[in-house]
C-alpha cells in the first residue's frame, strides 16, 4: 500500500550512507571489518545506556535522562574505539590492502564514524520503516503524516553527524585539541536533546537546527580532514 513511502524514506535515510559504503568502504575488507566493529561498539554503548534507562525505573518516562546518558556512553565508546584503532594501527598497517588507511588517519575515523552512524540510524528507523509497509500512515491519534519523512531526514542527519563527529573526535585526540572534543560532545548532546521537541511535532524547530549543525560539523570535519577552501575551489574548478 504505502510501499512508496517505505522506499522513499529508506532512500532518504540510507541512500547517502549506502553510497558512501559502496564507494569508499566496500572495496577494502579491512574497512568493512572496522565498520562492523564500530557498529558493534555502538551497540554496546546503546546496551549500557538502555540498561541504565531500564534500571532507573522512576525516570523511564523522562526520556531526556536516557538520552543524555546514551550520548555520553556513545562518546565514551567512540573514545574506546579510538584507542583500540590507534593501538592496532601497526597491525592494520600490515593487514591493509592499500596503506592509505593507515597513512591518512582520517580514513579510520571516517570508517568507524560511518559505522556508528549507520547502526544508530538503523536502530532509530528500522522498526518505523517496518511499520510503514502497512496500508496506513501516521496521524490517526495525533502526529502528522510528515512523521515518516521527518524521521528519515533526522536519521540521515544523525548518520552524517556521527561520521563527521568521529573524524573531528579522532583528530582532536591525535592533536589534543580539547576544543574539538568539547564541540563533538556538546553538539551531540544538543542535537539529541533538540529532537525531544519532535514529540510535539515541532519539526522545523528541530530539523533546521540539526541540519545547520550537520553542515557546520561537516565543514569542520572537512577542514580537519585536510580540506581547505583552496582545495575545494580546485576540486570544483576541475570541471
Amino acid at each position, binding site marked *: *500500500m*504505502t510501499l*512508496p*513511502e517505505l*522506499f*522513499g*524514506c*529508506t*532512500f*532518504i535515510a540510507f*541512500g*547517502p550512507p*549506502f*553510497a*558512501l559504503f*559502496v*564507494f*569508499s568502504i566496500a572495496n577494502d575488507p579491512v574497512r568493512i571489518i572496522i565498520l562492523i566493529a564500530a557498529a558493534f561498539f555502538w551497540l554496546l554503548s546503546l546496551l549500557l545506556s538502555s*540498561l*541504565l534507562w*531500564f*534500571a*532507573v*525505573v522512576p525516570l*523511564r518516562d523522562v526520556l531526556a535522562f536516557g538520552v543524555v546518558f546514551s550520548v555520553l556512553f556513545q562518546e565514551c565508546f567512540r573514545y574506546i574505539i579510538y584507542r583500540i584503532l590507534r593501538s592496532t594501527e601497526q597491525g592494520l598497517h600490515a593487514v591493509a590492502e592499500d596503506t*592509505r588507511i593507515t*597513512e*591518512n588517519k*582520517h580514513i579510520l575515523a571516517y570508517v568507524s564514524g560511518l559505522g556508528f552512524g549507520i547502526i544508530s540510524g538503523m536502530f532509530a528507523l528500522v*522498526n*518505523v520503516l517496518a*511499520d*510503514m509497509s*502497512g*496500508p*496506513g*500512515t*501516521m*496521524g*490517526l*491519534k*495525533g*502526529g502528522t*503524516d510528515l512523521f*515518516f*519523512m521527518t524521521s*528519515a531526514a533526522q536519521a*540521515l542527519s544523525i548518520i552524517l553527524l556521527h561520521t563527521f563527529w568521529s573524524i573531528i573526535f579522532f583528530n582532536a585526540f591525535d592533536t589534543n585539541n580539547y576544543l574539538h572534543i568539547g564541540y563533538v560532545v556538546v553538539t551531540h548532546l544538543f542535537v539529541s536533546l533538540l529532537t525531544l521537541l519532535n514529540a510535539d511535532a515541532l519539526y522545523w524547530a528541530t530539523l533546521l537546527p540539526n541540519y545547520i549543525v550537520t553542515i557546520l560539523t561537516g565543514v569542520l570535519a*572537512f577542514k580537519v*580532514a*585536510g*580540506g*581547505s577552501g583552496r*582545495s*575545494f575551489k*580546485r*576540486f570544483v574548478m*576541475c570541471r
Partner: protein
Amino acid sequence: MAQEVKSAAIWLLLLLQSSAIVISERTRDKIYQPIIGASCFRRLNGTHQTGCSSTYSGSVGVLHLINVEADLEFLLSSPPSPPYAPLIPPHLFTRTNLLRLKEAGPRIISVVLLINRPKKMNQFSHELNCPNQYSGLKLDNRTETVTCDVTNVGNTWNPWGTGLLHEDFPFPIYYIADAEEIDKLESCFEKFNNFDYASHALRSLCAVEVKSFMSAAVNSEVCMRRTNFINNLGGSKYCDPLEGRNVYATLYPRNSPENLEANAARRVNANEKFIIVSCRLDTTSMFDGLGLGAMDSLLSLATLTHVAHMLRLLLPTQSTLPDPKRNVLFVAFNGESYDYIGSQRFVYDIEHLAFPTRSTHSTPISFENIEFMLDIGTLDDIRNIKLHTLTATPLAQQLLQKLNQYAKSPRYGFNVNIESNVGYQIPPTSAQSFLRRETKFPALILNAVPGNKYYHSVYDDLDNVAFIYGNTSEDYTILADINDKKYFDADSLQMKVRNVSSIVAMALYETLTGKQYQGNEVASSILADEFFYCYLQSSDCPLFKASSYPNSPAGLPLPPMRYISVLGGSQESSGWTYRLLGFLLSHPEPNVPKENCSQLPLFYFAGLNGTGECRRTTQNFTSALSPAFLIEDYDWRSGQYSTWTESTWSQFSARIFLRPSNVHEITTLSIGIVVFIISFCLIYIISSRWEVLFEDVPASNAALPPPTAC
C-alpha cells in the same frame, strides 16, 4: 573492572526488582486502531456462492458516512479518491442500495460497514421472500417450491425479505454493533474526511481495512472437491458442510422389551405409534456469531419445550393410556434455515431405518410408526394462528377442533382463535421435508400469519419479542395455576408462550388419553421467563444450570449461538436444548447413586436447587448433516437435498487508519529517489578524486601532482 562488575550486579538487581514491565508502543500502534465487529462471510450451495469476502490481503476503503440516500450518489458518481467504505445505517441497508454498491464494483466500493443505528429502521430481513425457496415441497419437478409464490410478495412467508443473504458481494460487509466503535468511526470520518470533498485526492483520509478473506469459491461442488483432493503435502481446507445435531426426546421412555433390540437386526416394531411434535432449533443471520432468531424460531422452540414439560407432568404412565403403544416424539430440527438440513436428514434416516441410531439400542422407527406430525412453525402473532394441512383430513379436523376447544374456552381464557388452512400455501417448516417425500404424510403445521419484520436478521432479538426478564426465583418445574397472573401481564411474551403451549398440550393430552382435560394447571410462565432469559440474554442462567451437571462450569454470559455452523463449530444451542429436554422430560431416580448415573438413559442433573439428582431421560441427538454429503457422487445441481457449505477463513479483523494520498506517497518516493541519486553522484565524484579535496594532510599524498583524471 571490579567496579563495573559490581555496578552491573546492582543493575541486574534493580532489573529484577523493577517488576514494572515496560509498555513500549510501536509506531504501528499509533497508526492503527482496531474496530470490533462481526463480518459477513461466504456460504455456498450446489450452484452459487453467497455472502462476501475481502481481498486476499484485506480490503481498504475510505470511510464515508451515509445519512441519506443522496450521500450514496456522491460515492457512486465519480468519487474523488476511491475506493470508499460507506458507513450505512440499517434503514438504508436496502436491496436496491446494496445492489447499486455491488454494481459500482470493488474499485469504487471496497468495504461496506453496517453501523448499529436502528432509529429510522422499521424492517430488516435479508432472507428471501420465500425462505428455502428451492427446497421444500415441489410439484412436477419444478425447481421452486409450490408452497410460496414469489410473484405475490404480500402473500409470501417473509414479505419484508430482501434476499441479500443469498447475494454474492465482491466486498466485505462488516457489522459494528458497539456504540463506542461506531463513535470511533464517525469521529474519524468527521475529523479527516467530512469536509472539502474536492480535495480528498490530495490529503490523507480516514480509511478502514477489513480482513475477511474466504477460501472457498464458486459452489459447494468445487470447494468440496478441492477440499477432499489432497494435492500436495499439506492438503488445505476450503469449506465445510453445514452440520449440526437434531435434538429429540420421547415423552415415555422406549424401554419396553420389544423396543430394546437385543441383536443388531434393525427390525421395526410395527405396533409402536408416535405423534411427532417438532419445531426448528436454529436460526441464521448475515453476520458471524450474531442473530438470536427470537421470533423466527425461538418462540416455537419454547412452545415445544413447554408442551413437552406439561405433557410429562400431566400424563399418567404409558401403560394406563388407552393405547399403551402410543408415544410422543419431540424433535427440534437443526439447520432448517438452510434448506431443511435437519429434517431432510431425519427423513433420510427413517427411510434407511437409521433412526434412532444403533448406539441407542432401540428399534428403528419407520414411517408406519408415525401417527401424525404436529409441526410448530413461526408464532409471530399468536392472535391468529393457522393449522396448515395439505389436504383436508379428518385427523386435521379433529385436532383443530380440540385445539380451538381449549383456545376459545372461557375457562382458561386464552381467547386464541386457530383457523384451518388447507392447500399448498404451507409455511417453510420442517414438515415440508416429510411432505416432499410423501404428500399423503399426515403433517399438521401450526403457524401464525407472518408478522416478523426482522426474520433471520441481527435485529430479531429480545426487543423484537418485547421480552423483559421477570427474574422471579420461583419453581419453574411445576405447572402454574390458570389464575396466577401475578408476575406477567396478559400480553407479555411469557404469557403468550404459556397460552399457546397450554393449548397444544391440552389438545395432545386429549388425543392421547381420549379424555378431555379438566385440570386448572397450565404451562408455567415462569419456565418461559427462565427459558427466554437463557436463550436471549445469558447462557449463565438458572435453567441451564439446573439442567447441566452439578457445579459444572457455568455457560458464558452470552446467549447461545443458534446458527447451525459446521462440524467442530460451537453446537451450543443443540447442547443446551438436549440437556433442557432431558431435564424437563425425565423422571427422577432417587435411589440410583451418582456414580451409577453416568450412562444414558440415566443422566445426572444439578436439578432445581443445584444438589444433583439422577433422572431417567429420553432425549438424544441425531446428526443434522445433509444427505447430499453422504451419498456417493451426489448430483449437486439436482436440488434434492441441501448442499450448503460454509467457507473457511483465517481471520476477521478491521482497523481504521489514515490512508496517505497518492500525492503524498509520490512526493515521498520522488524525494527519496532524488536524494539517493544525488548522493550517489556526489560521493562518486568525491571518492574518485579525494586526493584533490584532502590534498594537504597525508605526507605521502602531499607530493602528488593533481591526478590526471581532471
